[in-house]
């Protein structure tokens, strides 16, 4: 009798559980069968009517039925939870092609981007980054660099003067002298900074711009070392395939002096509008530090030698990022800055 009941309860409950469609419904089924006043519980309560000798068997059956129902219950719960999750995910489908929400970060100035690159390359080669004053003595800017009084380069048309002896530095080269006065060889430094020349503002000129000076002083430094160093710089800066060309030139503070061209990084040297069909682009001036400059800075040219170079930062930035007007660098239009 009980057995039949049990079987019926079991079958009904399993069927209802398997058909239930919501968690709430399932919960009601659970209460109806397994709850304190549920059918199965009631059945257990009626055990007192069972013949004592059958009780263990019946008890076992009831417990088995209970376990089975609980198993089905948890299966149904899992099934419904999965279904709920599925529905949720389905309702949350997004259009992944909608615009990105970018975090509003600022942008470095293109000069800075180029300078970071130059600094990274030379710091990697063991160079220390040093600085010097932007308002400078005539002595450091000219005289100590073997540009004597009355040299045409000192003409007022090029140099901004404050007093007879103090000026806005026209180049970063005075840092060479200041460094040699302070440090003993071996010296490997670069010195980026602002320089000033009396040029009206236009697409290719600015009265204020930046240079990066470089200098190495040690025993046995050769012109070949200069070539090798700057070739390595050019390859890292402009690409592994870059070729370099050194042309003799003249600077008062180096001897021998050279200008370095790199193969056009736009056309690879075949000649294009960018390099004015030359295949080469002038990048920097360099040379062996003039013995007079070494001596004036307290370094014996019989023992030490060295090389120096000067790079126009704006020139690099304009070339590298193909900026066609230098004025853009000082207007600070956000639509321009955002591109770097």
């Amino acid at each position, binding site marked *: 009798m009980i057995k039949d009941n049990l079987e019926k309860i079991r079958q009904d409950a399993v069927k209802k559980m398997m058909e239930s469609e919501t968690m709430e419904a399932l919960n009601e089924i659970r209460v109806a069968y397994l709850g304190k006043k549920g059918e199965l519980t009631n059945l257990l309560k009626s055990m007192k009517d069972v013949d004592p000798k059958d009780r263990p068997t019946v008890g076992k059956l009831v417990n088995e039925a209970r376990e089975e129902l609980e198993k089905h219950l948890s299966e149904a719960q899992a099934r419904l939870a999965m279904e709920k999750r599925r529905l949720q995910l389905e309702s949350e489908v997004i259009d992944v092609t909608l615009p990105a929400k970018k975090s509003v970060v600022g942008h470095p100035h293109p000069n800075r981007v180029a300078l970071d690159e130059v600094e990274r390359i030379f710091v990697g080669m063991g160079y*220390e980054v040093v600085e010097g004053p932007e308002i400078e003595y005539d002595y450091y800017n000219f005289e100590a660099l073997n540009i004597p009084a009355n040299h045409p380069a000192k003409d007022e048309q090029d140099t901004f003067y404050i007093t007879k002896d103090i000026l806005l530095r026209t180049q970063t080269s005075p840092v060479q002298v200041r460094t040699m006065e302070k440090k003993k060889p071996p010296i490997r430094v670069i010195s980026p900074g602002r320089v000033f020349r009396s040029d009206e503002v236009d697409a290719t000129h600015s009265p204020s711009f930046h240079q990066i000076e470089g200098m190495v002083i040690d025993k046995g430094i050769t012109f070949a070392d200069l070539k090798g160093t700057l070739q390595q710089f050019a390859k890292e800066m402009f690409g592994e395939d870059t070729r370099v060309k050194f042309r003799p030139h003249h600077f008062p503070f180096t001897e021998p002096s050279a200008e370095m061209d790199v193969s056009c990084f736009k056309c690879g040297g075949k000649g294009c509008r960018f390099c004015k069909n030359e295949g080469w682009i002038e990048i920097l001036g360099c040379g062996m530090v003039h013995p007079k400059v070494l001596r004036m800075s307290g370094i014996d040219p019989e023992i030490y030698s060295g090389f120096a170079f000067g790079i126009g930062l704006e020139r690099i930035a304009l070339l590298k990022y193909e900026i066609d007007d230098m004025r853009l660098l000082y207007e600070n239009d956000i639509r321009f*800055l955002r591109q770097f």
Partner: protein
Amino acid sequence: MNTSYNWIKAYVPGLDAGDREYADAMTLSGTKVESYSRLDKNLEKIVVGKVEKIERHPDADHLIICQVNVGDEVIQIVTGAPNVFEGAKVPVVLVGGRVAGGHDGGPLPEEGIKIKKGKLRGVESYGMMCSIEELGSSREYYPEAPENGIYIFPDNVEVGKDAVEALGLHDTVFEYEITSNRVDCFSLLGIAREAAATFRKDYVPPVVTETGNNEKASDFIKVRIDAPDLCSRFCARIVKNIKIAPSPEWMQRRLASAGIRPINNLVDITNYVMVEYGQPMHAYDWDQISNHEIIVRRAQDGDEFQTLDGQVRKLDHDMLMICDGEKEVGLAGIMGGENSKITDDVTTMLFEAACFDGTNVRLSAKRLGLRTDASSIFEKGLDPNNTELAINRACQLVEELGAGEVVGGMVDVYPHPWTSRRIAFRPDWINSFIGTDVDPETMKEYFKRLGLGFDEDAQEVIVPTFRQDLEQEADIAEEVARFFGYDNIPTTLPRGEATAGKLSFKQRIEAVARQVAEYSGFSQAMTYSFESPKVFDRLLLTEDAPEREAIRISNPLGEEFSIMRTVSLNGILTSLATNYNRRNKSVSLYEMGNIYIPRELPLTELPDERMQLTLGSYDSKYDFFAMKGVVEEFFDKIGLSGIKEYRVDTRRPYLHPGRQADIWYGGVKVGYLGELHPQVADNYGIGERTCIAVLDMPEIVPQATFDHKYMGIARFPASSRDISMVMKKSITAGEVESVIRGKGGKLLESCELFDIYEGKQIMSGFKSMAYNIVFRASDRTLEDREVNDIMEKILSALKEMGIELRA
């Protein structure tokens, strides 16, 4: 400097390189070719023709029909040119040929103009007779060419020959960039010498022969130099019985190739020698020279002098004058005088080839505002030994051209003759300096080709005076490097002791500042260091504000770039205004740049250059407190974890009076921040609320550190209390917090404002503030009693300030 290739080849006969090859090789050996152009570009199938017969065109009054003999045939050409006549020899471009330009002399088309068979008003025409403009040149260089019409050849030109050849246009003109040290290369012969050395060909300069009759120049002229510091040499020669005439074609063509217009034989000779030798010369009318004497002396302050261009010039004591027995006759090295200039009826001429101090010529020319061809050469500083060669070459040309009778001898005043210099030759040192292994004999070969001597006994290089740039061994090393070839020198890397590459501490802190600014949404600006003094007015600074004590540039580009900035704001505000005007929304910029604070004015020592981090934004997101957040974020990143004070005691006129503060850290003022004064925003034309922050890096860097110690993660629970208070509006959060921190002692972990309120339920003039205060001990759980004691102290201190706990 421009030269004709044919002219160079005249002195380097073996030179056979093509244009491109020549340009590249010269550039690599140090004589940089900037550009070059062929004079016969687009000139094809052009021959000398002879007009044999001219008939009128039956249907057009302005046209004529010419039968032109072009050598192997006679062709018919119809033309409108007014100047052709029977027997005229003219350049004729045949059908299928090409000319460089139109007859109007306008810009030359890139591909030239192709000539086809044509019909003019029904009459066939088989080519074109050419004007000099159609041949790509101008009357400037071919003064004999007619103003509107066909170029007419002299009669000795052979019919049927290449007309371009006859005009001397099969040539290339090279333009060089000569560096200031190579004074000798501002001459054709200097470049020819370099070309010969570059291509290893012989250099064959003109042979200057002895000239002159039996008379003696010294009987015609006396010369005295009173200012030997400014005039190292003065050579004078006399030419009499002058016959002014056009110079021969070959000379005219060569001058034209150097961009010089032919005038007459005398002028052309001086110009020709100036190009060849790089020595400017001057010619005086000998009859106008009083006492027939020349005195070279300084001018008197205030003297006036009329130069040969008719202008009256004011002189000063530092200008060098050429004078005769009575008066000034020339501004030395710059321009001759009106009173002694050569006119068409000159009979006897005084030639001057002198050497003047380059710097003096340059400065005088500049003061006079009169930079001439001569002065621009003299200012480079010439070789006095060149004057003699040049004047003798000129006299040789006078004789060759039949321009006059050269008087024998030369008057030469040369107080301190220049002699050659000697430089020790140490080939091993040279090789070790440039990193090569060049054989000493090869080095000597380079020297020889450059015209340098060599003393085998002393092992010394002998440097002639035309190479003033060669002073020491490094200079000699450069000559070896140049001719060995810079591109043949190996590439190596410096050996020796390793050095550590690094940024300085200051640079690292600045890098963090840039990073924080950029992560916070600020983009990097760069602005000028100099600005207008009007900036101070724009920033509402009072007349006596210390910021107005700025360094002035003595020769600025203009008032707007005349002072070195003492406040960093103008650059950022100007850039923000630019963006605002261009309708760029919500712009935030920063700059890392110096201000320049004089220690005294006028400057006697270098000023204090102070690096400033300047942030500015008209993004509504960046109110005062967001800006403060960026500043504190930066401070946290560089180890400034102590208390930041915001003081309101200094009123900066450019900031909102109620929304500004000076930032103090570690007992020093390290910057300021605030909202821009609306009047200043108006002055710049920024139509939105703008916030700025300026940090004075020299005060920050010494306090910064990258040292960082791990603090144990708290193991014991915190005890937290919330208090809500009512106080007068004038009491600041900073004051409240300093009481809480002061009384909170070691156990206080944090105190944070979580509510601030004014309005209903609060008396007017008062506000309510609520703080969450957290206490914690690192070694135990705090007992309530301990916390209550501290809270009591805090509350009673607050009470003393008139702050009440809110019920």
